[in-house]
């Protein structure tokens, strides 16, 4: 292993977060001087209000929504919490459909959701809601038969993510949403990994709620948005202010909102060409790994997958060790190993796809973005081959380790 960190850096963790787009940065620097409170009636306030509303229009139009259907929130997690917590609502604000006391006390979600959906759902069971977690197949696709059987007249809300952060698998949201609406339940999708990476049209999908975030698409952190279809029940998660039409209290994060709007606008220009480029890079990366490293498994769906996301398991090589050796080589990735998460179990997403614990412990996620080049991919293939060989050499697996 090299002793010093190298100059050449390759960032392959775009699903965790992305660098700010240079154009977004420029916009933000200019916007920093607009300090007025958008709620103020004077000129300072009106200047800020205008930028916020411009941003709302850009954001709405990108997903084919109306501006008043967009609520700016603090993060994708807040957007998801807001929707799930409609169930805990007091019922005073038109959400009698979605409350533990209604005749539709059931939430249905999947085993591969982000923890902010899983944990806020689990939390509601203590308040009388019932939660059902639907499984996925080996590629991470939601089991539609199980979902169909689960949704009934007692289901209030179904929440299924559009694209998975760890394995990149994309769900058939339009189909799932139709199935849910047939039973009279509402449908939410966590589209944090999808908006800005693949086309998302809320009207076409038919969803009632959709969450997304700016920092996954070259915007700033601390800003997300929630789409709420006109007419869908709603209750604020943060009470006590008239902001966002009384739907999210707290002085607007003006700078964040402007950054989100600009990032979204740029996605409109770059997404389609970048998506094609990333698909080719992913093929190159996948082929390079297959050719150079034995005893591997790819996780996630072979075709219905985010263009820049590749998740691979290296047998006999523990993920955190691989991640940190790659880090020494200037390469940033992530892993589904338990060691890295600080918990006892490896990734719940990978385990839900039915792979072995060894595969999950040895999983590495590489997520590419607009700054990833062919040269980066070739560098990663070279270093990865070296690191995996090294980790396997010192591993007990090379002397017949116990696997069960």
């Amino acid at each position: 292993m090299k002793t010093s960190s190298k100059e050449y850096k390759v960032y392959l963790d775009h699903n965790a977060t992305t660098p700010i787009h240079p154009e977004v940065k420029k916009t933000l620097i200019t916007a920093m001087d607009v300090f007025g409170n958008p709620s103020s009636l004077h000129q300072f306030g009106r200047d800020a209000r205008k930028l916020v509303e411009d941003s709302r229009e850009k954001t709405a139009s990108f997903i084919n929504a109306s501006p008043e259907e967009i609520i700016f929130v603090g993060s994708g997690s807040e957007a998801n919490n807001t929707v799930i917590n409609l169930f805990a609502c007091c019922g005073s604000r038109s959400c009698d459909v979605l409350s533990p006391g209604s005749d539709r006390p059931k939430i249905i979600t999947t085993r591969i959701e982000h923890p902010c959906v899983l944990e806020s759902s689990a939390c509601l069971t203590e308040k009388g809601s019932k939660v059902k977690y639907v499984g996925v197949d080996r590629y991470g696709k939601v089991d539609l038969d199980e979902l169909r059987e689960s949704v009934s007249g007692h289901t209030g809300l179904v929440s299924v993510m559009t694209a998975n952060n760890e394995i990149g698998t994309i769900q058939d949201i339009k189909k799932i949403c139709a199935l849910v609406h047939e039973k009279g339940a509402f449908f939410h999708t966590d589209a944090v990994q999808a908006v800005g990476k693949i086309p998302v049209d809320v009207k076409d999908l038919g969803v009632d709620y959709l969450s997304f975030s700016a920092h996954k698409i070259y915007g700033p952190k601390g800003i997300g948005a929630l789409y709420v279809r006109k007419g869908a029940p709603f209750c604020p998660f943060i009470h006590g202010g008239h902001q966002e039409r009384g739907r999210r209290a707290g002085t607007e994060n003006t700078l964040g909102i402007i950054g989100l709007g600009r990032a979204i606008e740029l996605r409109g220009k770059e997404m389609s060409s970048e998506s094609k480029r990333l698909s080719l890079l992913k093929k190159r990366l996948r082929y390079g790994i297959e050719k150079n490293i034995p005893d591997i498994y790819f996780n996630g769906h072979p075709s219905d997958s985010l263009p820049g996301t590749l998740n691979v398991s290296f047998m006999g090589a523990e993920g955190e060790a691989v991640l940190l050796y790659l880090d020494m080589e200037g390469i940033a990735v992530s892993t589904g190993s338990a060691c890295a998460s600080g918990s006892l179990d490896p990734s719940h997403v990978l385990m839900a796809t039915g792979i072995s614990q060894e595969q999950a412990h040895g999983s590495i996620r590489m997520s590419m973005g607009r700054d990833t080049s062919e040269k980066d991919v070739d560098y990663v293939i070279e270093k990865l081959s070296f690191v995996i060989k090294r980790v396997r050499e010192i591993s007990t697996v090379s002397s017949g380790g116990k696997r069960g």
Partner: protein
Amino acid sequence: MDKPSDWLYTEKVKEHFMHPRNILMDESGFSADGKGVIGNIKCGDEMALWIKVDKQKGVITDCKWKTYGCASAIASTSVLSELAIGKTLEAAYKLSSQDIAKALGGLPEHKIHCSVLGDKALRAAIDDYYTRNGMLEKVKAEKEHIICQCLGITDTEIENAVLEGARNYYQLQERTKIGTVCGKCKEKSIDLLEKYKTKYFNRV
């Protein structure tokens, strides 16, 4: 802990992670006097340790290892091999996970319980040496009872975890990693947890 670096763990851990000492690269070319294996790939950590012993003096003259595991697992086995060499069998037997963590300049608490298994592998190797040499009276492994077969966790460790503050099964798992592979020992370990809670704290 040592002064935190911009790395995940201490500089000492980084040093051992990047330049692990005493790895056994050629198993067939190394005639060991004792071998111990602990852990399980399924749970994310497995260690194998080989020792050579000066039979006259009862001193460990060489210690080699292999590890499947995270950075602190690799570093802790590496530093343990250095600690073991030159020690008498008795002294080496007493090396604890805390001694290893100390030699590394400190490790986060949850890492000590989940990734530092080397001391157990060393005791297993020493017991193996005693067994091979007909010194069965010295084998200590049987004084404790292994509860979790997958990870080799004993009743003594459950007792220690309770003394350190574990009050429910989840906290016990956080401290020992018990039952995180096949889970068959859950009932037994909860019984023991309750037993030790009552014994030391008189609460059920």
